[in-house]
């Protein structure tokens, strides 16, 4: 008797099998993962809060170095990308695969725009020598150093999430094209959407904390 026979003859399958696809389990798993992401950034928010309290004037002074307009544009770009991925889900639910792909693709485009703007923002800071370890940075008072350190750490980690989210959506687009994600099996697209919205939510907090509190 061969191995396949052994498994093939195993006719009985439990109704609640872990090997069956379960859309609800998939969604719940994604949400649980989002909680861990929230608390990952949460640790950084705790650090931000403690050091903002200890160095109020330094944080205020340092925050004027950031360009509010670039931040605002980036916020709008991200919010719009959230809209397009949400619409992409609706499109696929309604069965319009083509529109769904176009919308998901525009989310990736928005992610790229976000990263390009971020690149110029960071570039300007590098020119001023504000990256941790650079000469100008080292001449700043401690409070301002902490501010820039946290700025680079938090927006950097966020940018990393933007990249990961973009790749995730890219994979999802490929699977929609192959038909593996479709009207009846939409979980992965929904999950990529959830992840993308989380990236958005984190930025919603980062934006005022670093750019707006003057």
């Amino acid at each position, binding site marked *: 008797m061969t191995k396949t026979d052994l498994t093939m003859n195993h006719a*009985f399958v439990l109704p609640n099998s872990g090997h069956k696809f*379960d859309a609800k389990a998939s969604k719940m798993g994604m949400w*649980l993962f989002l909680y861990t992401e929230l608390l990952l950034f949460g640790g950084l928010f705790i650090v931000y809060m*403690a050091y903002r309290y200890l160095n109020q004037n330094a944080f205020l002074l340092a925050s004027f170095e950031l360009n509010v307009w670039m931040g605002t544009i980036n916020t709008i770009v991200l919010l719009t990308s959230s809209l397009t991925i949400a619409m992409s889900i609706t499109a696929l639910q309604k069965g319009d695969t083509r529109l769904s792909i176009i919308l998901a693709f525009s989310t990736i485009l928005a992610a790229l725009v976000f990263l390009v703007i971020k690149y110029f923002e960071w570039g300007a800071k590098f020119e001023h020598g504000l990256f941790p*370890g650079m000469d100008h940075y080292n001449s700043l008072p401690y409070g301002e150093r902490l501010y820039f350190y946290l700025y680079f750490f938090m927006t950097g980690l966020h940018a990393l999430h933007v990249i990961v989210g973009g790749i995730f959506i890219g994979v999802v687009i490929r699977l929609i094209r192959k038909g593996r994600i479709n009207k009846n099996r939409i979980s992965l697209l929904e999950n990529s959407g959830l992840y993308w919205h989380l990236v958005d939510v984190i930025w919603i907090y980062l934006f005022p904390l670093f750019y707006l509190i003057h």
Partner: protein
Amino acid sequence: MTVAALPQTNFFQIKKGIFSWLFTLDHKRIGLMYLYSVGLFFLVAAGLGVAMRLELLNPGRDIMSPQTYNQVFTLHGVIMIFLFIIPSIPAVFGNFFLPLMLGTDDVAFPKINLLSYWLYVLGALFALSTLMYGSGPADTGWTFYAPYSVKTGTNVTMAVLAAFILGFSSILTGLNFIVTIHRLRTPGMGFNQMPLFAWSLYATSWIQLLATPVIGITLLMIVAERVFGIGLFDPAIGGDPILYQHLFWIYSHPAVYIMALPAMGIVSEIIPTFAQRTIFGYKAIAYSSMAIAFVGYFVWGHHMFTSGMSGPAAIIFSILTFFVAIPTAIKVFNWVATLYKGSINIQVPLLFALAFIFNFMIGGLTGLVLGAVAADIHVHDTYFVVGHFHYVMFGGAGFAFFGALHYWFPKIWGRMYNMRMANIAFTILFIGFNMLYFPMLILGLEGMPRRYYDYLPEFHTLNVVSTVGSWVLATGLLLMIGNLIAGYLKGKAASANPWNGITLEWQTSSPPPLHNFDKMPELTKGGPYNFPNAKSTHKK
């Protein structure tokens, strides 16, 4: 070859070869791979522990230099915490038995389960790599306190990255269990018909999920601080080391419950089976697991009473700490009440469960001493803490782990170990354990500080007792492991249900078939521990 012979094909036989194990999606095989890995690291770290006790046999230098001693106790802590206790019960017995107890054939995400195991291996390799290069493993203690962890020349970066990866593995296991419990319970099994082990895993998983990310990011900050040489926690450059301690203990205190809660779940399984009667206060035990998980988030500050935290914060944390005692005591009273008037069948698993209660009581009550600000200030960072900690972790979680191993051994391997030998090994283990750790409580009260390779001459006698205890303990451990291996190799065949248990895992053959059940498992009416032939019920 007839179809009727098929139920005899268990999950060991269905596929052979090393790759059928390494890339298996079967929760039982993943659980066993965890068991072998975790067991290996336990032996390594226990060996380091024995070496430390040997160094402390006499005042002054015996077998290692102060620096080596610092590295040994750090390695002992890191391995025991991150590579043994945290994954031990959830990843080994949780993986193996949670789906069986819920009457399903696997966890909700089998691939993520395998990923979680491989992340564990990767993390272990990172941790072991610190031995190989530079100035050796970290010497900071397992807590990696800043600013020392930022300044020391030992391989802290690698050790910290190892903890980060292991944390990720732990998160994925927790995530998997929560979804499994929500989605894969057998039809008819509500949350309140779940075995208590599943409840304890549910509570544990929430801790793994919500606490671990905080330490992940904290450890990344330590890495960044070391690699880029710029400070978040070093006071010399504007940081605040107490903030590191806050972040560290926001994870690491709940992590203590990651270790203890599943152990309580195991005891809640063993006791009704060997008392042959329904558990007293099912809901109280189930919900107290959730309560411990919940309250466990609010008490981290009690590790920091002497660190320079503010007085009011210390008092609030101290008060909150006492609340943990309530759900813990509820459990203990319910276990004892379950035994009362039961038809007690004294077997090794029950002995381990009783030893758990005994040790955990000592651990828990000394914990209250440490939880009170005024008392803690006197015994902080003394051997009292070491004793307390090991009573909870080793005497509690460790003994429950061994108990579970003896309880489920016939189910996992379909064989039985030698009972007489198991009893002897247990007795030696129990005596050795108390001989090793009880003197530490006294030494701590007398003022012997921890984490030194040396001590004043007046502490000599008790240190000798403790070191001899470590030898007794090691003997017991080796006997126990030898007995289990002998049972695995040539023990006599065990029936599907040798202890007459009634949770669902006992309804399938031993070892279980690949898909766990060949027919629908049947739920017992009136709760998971409603023994049909019980002599008495708890109804008045």
